[in-house]
């Protein structure tokens, strides 16, 4: 399916708008209410990371299929400083900012597939998918 939507992540209000896009698409993908809530919450964490740590970025959302399975795939990209120590950043309770440190590790627990590409000076790209 090629209905990818790009949503900007430049302001706090963009996080709210991104959540609404994800909710709508999660419903389209036929996810249960609990699964919708999980991916919306994961999206909120990752959108905020892109804004606060990455200096802004974009979210690309796309309905995907794998055989008969349907799902929602989201990608969060920023051109920020990147994460120098990914193992540390993935730990519960670790934060370099003002958060609770549940963003990355928590978001990972809320979805089925989680992939992150990052490094110093390379920005950060996180891709998540929740399958029906």
């Amino acid at each position, binding site marked *: 399916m090629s209905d990818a939507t790009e949503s900007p992540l430049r302001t*706090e209000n963009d996080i*709210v708008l991104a959540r*609404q896009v994800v909710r709508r698409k999660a419903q389209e993908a036929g996810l249960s209410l*609990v699964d*919708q*809530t*999980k991916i919306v919450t994961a999206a909120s*964490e990752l959108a905020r990371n892109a804004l606060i740590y990455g200096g802004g970025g974009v979210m690309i959302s796309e309905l995907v299929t794998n055989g008969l399975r349907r799902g929602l795939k989201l990608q969060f990209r920023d051109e920020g400083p990147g994460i120098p120590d990914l193992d540390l950043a993935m730990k519960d309770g670790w934060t370099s900012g003002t*958060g609770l440190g549940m963003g990355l590790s928590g978001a990972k627990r*809320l979805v089925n597939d989680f992939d992150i590409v990052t490094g110093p000076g390379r920005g950060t790209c996180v891709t998540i998918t929740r399958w029906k």
Partner: protein
Amino acid sequence: MSQKIPIIRMGRYLLVSIQVDMHDQLALQLQDDLTASIQKHGAQGVLIDISALDMVDSFIGRMISDISGMARILGARSVLVGMQPAVAITLVELGLSLPGVATALTVERGMALLERSDAPHE
């Protein structure tokens, strides 16, 4: 963005019903407004109704914990009411179980909890 979350005074208690999808600044504004209201009215309890919220992420979760702690230091008890089951499941999986935050299923039960804890014989 001049949105505000209304804080309703009911006798010795304050009721906050969050009906909008909050951006971060609005959540922080609520913290300021609510602590100011507790002081102004000498409120003994705060009910925070989140039945209209369809998600609580770590930022909002932290705001709720902080409000509860601030209210306690100001001498008011707070009860979080109305959390949707899907939100509760997600919050715990995210890693937040809101320790130290009193909760109740409905506004009525939350109110009963506040009144019980206000009872003079306690």
